[in-house]
């Protein structure tokens, strides 16, 4: 029986790395978008930073999907 342990390790590393990166970016974006005090909305600068981070997160997910396309096609 041949088991590709290196590939298994890569799957584990990529899974944990990607999940922590995406959730981490979302948490950071949420921190920027949450108003510091009792205010209704966060200041403009924080909102921009939060939006940028959500954009980066979206790009990582789309990148992941593009990565998978060679397997499906």
């Amino acid at each position: 029986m041949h088991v590709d342990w290196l590939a298994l390790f890569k799957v584990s590393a990529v899974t944990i790395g990607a999940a922590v990166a995406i959730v981490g970016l979302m948490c950071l974006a949420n921190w920027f978008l949450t108003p510091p005090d009792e205010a209704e909305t966060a200041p403009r600068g924080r909102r921009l930073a939060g939006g940028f981070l959500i954009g980066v997160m979206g790009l990582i997910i789309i990148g992941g999907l593009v990565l998978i396309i060679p397997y499906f096609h």
Partner: protein
Amino acid sequence: MPIEAMIIIVVLTALVFDFTNGFHDSANAMATAVSTGAYKPKRAVLLAAIMNLVGACLSTEVAKTISSGIVDDTLVTPETVFAALVGAILWNLFTWLLGLPSSSSHAMFGALIGAVLVQVGMVGVHGGVVLSKILLPALVAPVVAGLASYCSTRLAYATLTTHHKGSKKRFRHAQQASSLLVALAHGTSDGQKTMGIITLVLIAGTLQSDGGQQWWSQAPGSGPHWWVIGGAGLAIALGTYSGGWRIMRTMGKGMADIEPVQGFAAETSAMAAILASSHFGFGLSTTHVVSGAVMGTGLGRTPGEVRWGTAGRMGVGWLLTLPAAGLIGAGAAFLAHQGTWGFVAVLVILAAAAASIRSLAGRNHVSPENVNDSHEVRVFGKATEAPSTPPTQGALATPLAASLPEGITSEHPAAATPLALTRLKPPKKKRRIRPARTKG
């Protein structure tokens, strides 16, 4: 039996399997989203159905590698595939009745192995491939997804200092997107598996027929017909839309009470695991991955909240899937190879068993309206009702201190858990006043 009639019956059975696969696995993508309220139940299954349909029609690469070398494809006949499908359908229905999220792909592989063993013996089964491609990934997948989910949940709760209303809303939106992607990934892998099965039957039927070109004829090595792609995509989408609420309850409420942050972490981890494993050529079960991720996120917030009883039942279900589906597949193959009467007998048994399971499920019906009302699925007896809102981390102290019994301060060790309090002060029994008896 004429080969054309057999082909039609096997193709229809494959579409029924695809339907059961859809409703069995719709929970994979949507259970956490439904339990956290990110989606309303009916909208969740509608969106999952659409994404499954899109995923199934995305390409046909997975369909070409259906048996993945687990059995010798050249020995497979329409009867073998029919028996394997019957085994997988019955195991899917049985686990659905119990509300157990088990892998439909493993059920299919187990039944196929059982059917081939009866037909040609051990020669037809590639043991090494079974170990490396099914058993090992089945062990690794939930652990990796659970670990990823655990780490991301810890990270999320470490950064969430306040429970701002907007945060919950944002994570709900994020969870909506991640669950749609999991549904897409499911359609891409599982929808195409049925296309592969049908294609396999059509090729086997073409080789067995006298050589005349039929509307269903298919040359070895060619891709699936357009009607196979459309039919399989529609079957899995319809199955997904029909819900599978029993499994959705177990997956969304049974293992742990989760919040939108946890739902997002679990779905993201599951999505990352599915995409990474597909890229590296491991065919993981989405059920195993999502179950592991939900358990990991439960452990990441409060370890005591994971219901290990439910997790243990699921583990037993996973262990039994291959041998149990294999046994049913072997029995069905034995009958189907006896001739027309055996083939018809298998069909009758399948219909009778499906009707019985459906009838049993009706005793404790789980629907979109009551899917979140309990955290357990029962066949007999009444399921325990779940609390209306899941407890949140750190939110227990205030209401608890306010409701402490006299003489017990918040520092008292007994005040640590709400359960202990109920033990300290049991509710007083009401005295029944009996009406006075009148003489005469």
